[in-house]
C-alpha cells in the first residue's frame, strides 16, 4: 500500500517535470543571477558603448524568460510601453522615397562588430520577408509582404500602421521576433519612411506582380 502510494507520487512528480519541459514555458531551472554571471563572464570587457547591447531592457528580459509567450499581465505591460515609444514624423508624412527604401530592405550590414561604424546600414527585411516578386532571394522567418500596399488599397491609415510596425514591431505584437528598428535606433526616421514607401508606393516593385 505505502509502496504503491510512493510510486504514484514519484510518477506524478516525473510527469510534472516532463510537462514543464514540453510546454516550452519558463522552467526556472536556474537562477537569473547564475545566468547573469555567465553572461558577464562571456563578455568581460565589451568595447566602449557596447555594454548596453549585452544588458537587456525590460521587454527583452520578459520575452526571454517566457520564450516569447508572455502571460496576459506581461503582454499588456509590454504593449503599453512599446506603443508609447513610437515616434511619428513631425510633419505626419510616413512615406519617403521607395527607391531609397529598396536599399534599406536589401542591405544586411551595419552594427556588427565586423562592420565599419560609417559603413552601409539597412533593415535586412529580405532576410525574413518576401517583398518584390522579382527578388527571389528572400527568407521565411516573417510573412510575405508581396503587394503589401496594393492589397491595402494604399490606405493612409494602413501606411501609418506599417510605419509604427517597422518603428517598433512590439507595439503591435509583444515579443514579436521582428526587430524594433526605430525604438532601438537601428534605422533613422528617414530610412523607416523610405522602407514604408517601398511597401506603399504604387510605383514600388513590391506592388507590381
Amino acid at each position, binding site marked *: 500500500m505505502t509502496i504503491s502510494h510512493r510510486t504514484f507520487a514519484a510518477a506524478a512528480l516525473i510527469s510534472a517535470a516532463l510537462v514543464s519541459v514540453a510546454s516550452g514555458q519558463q522552467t526556472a531551472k536556474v537562477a537569473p543571477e*547564475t545566468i547573469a554571471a555567465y553572461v558577464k*563572464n*562571456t563578455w568581460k570587457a565589451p568595447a566602449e558603448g557596447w555594454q548596453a*547591447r*549585452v544588458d537587456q531592457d525590460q521587454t*527583452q528580459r520578459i520575452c526571454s524568460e517566457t520564450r516569447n509567450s508572455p502571460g496576459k499581465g506581461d503582454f499588456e505591460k509590454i504593449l503599453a510601453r512599446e506603443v508609447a515609444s513610437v515616434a511619428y514624423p513631425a510633419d505626419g508624412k510616413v512615406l519617403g522615397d521607395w527607391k531609397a527604401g529598396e536599399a534599406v530592405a536589401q542591405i544586411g550590414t551595419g552594427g*556588427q562588430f565586423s562592420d565599419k561604424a560609417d559603413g552601409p546600414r539597412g533593415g535586412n527585411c529580405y532576410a525574413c520577408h518576401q517583398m518584390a516578386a522579382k527578388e*527571389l532571394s528572400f*527568407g521565411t522567418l516573417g510573412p510575405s509582404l508581396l503587394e503589401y500596399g496594393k492589397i491595402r488599397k494604399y490606405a493612409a491609415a494602413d501606411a501609418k500602421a506599417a510605419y509604427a510596425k517597422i518603428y517598433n514591431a512590439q507595439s503591435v505584437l509583444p515579443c514579436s521576433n521582428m526587430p524594433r528598428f526605430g525604438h532601438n535606433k537601428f534605422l533613422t526616421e528617414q530610412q523607416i519612411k523610405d522602407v514604408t514607401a517601398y511597401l506603399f508606393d504604387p510605383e514600388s516593385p513590391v506592388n507590381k506582380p
Partner: protein
Amino acid sequence: MRIGQRLSLVSQRTLLCKRLTLLCIGLLMSIVVAIPKGQAQQAADATEKEIERYRAMLSDPFANPAFLNVDRGEKLWTTPRGTKNVSLQGCDLGEGPGKVDGAYAKLPRYFTDADRVMDLEQRLLWCMETVQAVDMKDVIKRRFSGPGVISDMEDLVAYVANKSSGMKFAASLAHPKEQEMHAVGEAMFYRRSAVMDFSCATCHSDDGKRIRLQGLPNLSKSGKNAQETMGSWPTYRVSQSQMRTMQHRLWDCYRQMRMPAPDYASDGITALTIFLTKQAEGGDILVPSIKR
C-alpha cells in the same frame, strides 16, 4: 613522406573544390534566373534541392582540405613544446592522459583537476598552459586562422575531434556543474538582446525556415536537425577557405546578432555548446566535415 604526399594531394583537391564551388554558384544563379516570376515558391524549392546536392558533394571526405588540419594537429599533439618541453600526450581529455580516441564524443564534461566543466577548446588551453607551459597569448591571438595565419587550436580540434568520427555524442549530465551549465546554455539560447532583439531562438527554433536562401537548422528540439548540425563540426568552410570550430560558429552568430564578440573559450559559449550537444545526443559524429 607519407604526410607530404597527403599534403600535395589535399592542395590539389582544394583547387578542384574551389572550381566546383564556382560551378555550383553558377548553377544556382542560372536556376534563379530561369524561373519566371510569380513562381517564387517553386524557385525556392528548386534552389533548396540544388543546395542539397551541393552539400552532398561537399561532404566527400577525399575532397576535404580539413584533413590537412588533422595532420598538423596530430603533429602538434605529439611534439614537445612550451617551457616544460613536453608533448600533449600528458594531457587528460577525460579518458585518461594521452587518450584521444572517443574523447571528443564525451565533451564538454566536468574535470576534477580544474574543478570546472570544459569544452574541447577550454581543455586544450588548460593542457597547453599547465602541462606544457606554452605562450598562451600567442595561441589565443591565433585562435581563428586567416590569410597567412595558421591556428594551433583549429588544428588540434580537427585532430582530436576526428578521433571520435564515426562515434555518437554521449555527453554526461551527471555532475551538478554539468547540469547547471546545461540549464544556463538553454537560457542563453532564448536570451534576447542588442539592437536587433535577437536570440538564437529567433533563427533556430522552427522547422524549414530560411534567412534569404540559407536554410536554418531548428536547434530548439532534439533530433535530426541538431544531430546533423552538431555532428558536422568542426568543418571546412569553403566560403572562408578555413577549417572552423564551434567557438568560431557561435562567435559568427553573435556577430549577426549585433552583440559584442564573445570572449574566446568563455563559459557562456561552453554552456551553449553543452545545450546544443545534448540536443544532438545519439547523433553520429562525422568530422571534420566540409560545408558552404
